[in-house]
């Protein structure tokens, strides 16, 4: 691995570890570049999947890699879910492969439009379905995650 590349990862990993506030990190598309040190302080890894098989396979690989890297908790976020069948297929795959799913965000043309325009969906009025589910996910995560340092460690 190129030194500058690993240096950046190292800085970001240390920042995540030491920052005394909530951190949300947008990771590289593949986790392959990560080292144990970079991600060991991650409380929750969210794995975003789309309802098609290759995406689910990637999620499964990421899940295994996360375990190897020592991440204790990883959760699947299904995205761009168009039909109940989509959601069912993802849930079934997750169940079969021991992945935990925490949210299913409906396909929302306006979310994709915001992305295309390079805007936050929160500043793009028309996004409602998709945003509602992401906001719900934030609530669940906040309620669900024990603050650092007071973990009961089971």
């Amino acid at each position, binding site marked *: 691995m190129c030194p500058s590349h690993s*240096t950046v990862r190292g800085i970001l990993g240390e920042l995540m570890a*030491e*920052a005394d506030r909530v951190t949300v990190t947008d990771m590289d598309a593949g986790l392959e570049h990560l080292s144990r040190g970079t991600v060991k302080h991650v409380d929750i890894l969210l794995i975003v999947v789309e309802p098609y098989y290759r995406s689910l396979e990637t999620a499964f690989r990421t899940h295994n890699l996360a375990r190897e890297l020592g991440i204790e908790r990883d959760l699947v976020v299904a995205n761009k879910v168009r039909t109940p069948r989509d959601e069912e297929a993802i849930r079934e795959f997750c169940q079969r492969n021991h992945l935990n799913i925490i949210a299913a965000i409906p396909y929302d043309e306006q979310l994709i439009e915001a992305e295309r325009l*390079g805007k936050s969906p*929160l500043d793009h009025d028309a996004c409602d379905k998709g945003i509602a589910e992401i906001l719900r996910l934030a609530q669940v*995560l906040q309620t669900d995650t024990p603050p650092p340092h007071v973990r009961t460690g089971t």
Partner: protein
Amino acid sequence: MKIAVSGKGGSGKTTIAGTLARAFGRMGQRVLAIDADSNPNLATLLGMSREEAAGIVPLPRDLLQEETDASGNRILKLAMNPDAIAEAYGVKVPDNVTLLVGGKVDHAGSG
């Protein structure tokens, strides 16, 4: 709470990461959003314009320094504390979120 968001390109992971960051901010948290993608575009999904985003200075490499710990192991430590780093290099975006960008990597591999 330390959350990392992964997913293939085009999966919507950056949209989800950016929206979660601002949602936590709206819930009253101080939030650090970290763009660790080698093709960074979290800034616009947090509400910055493309022009503003293009002006972001990525974190300098020398923020990480090698030290020797008490048992003689070489360890890497941040040269400044995270709050100072956020103050010096962070970009303020809406909802009490500060963004830090790792920087573009020219050879992003096959990810």
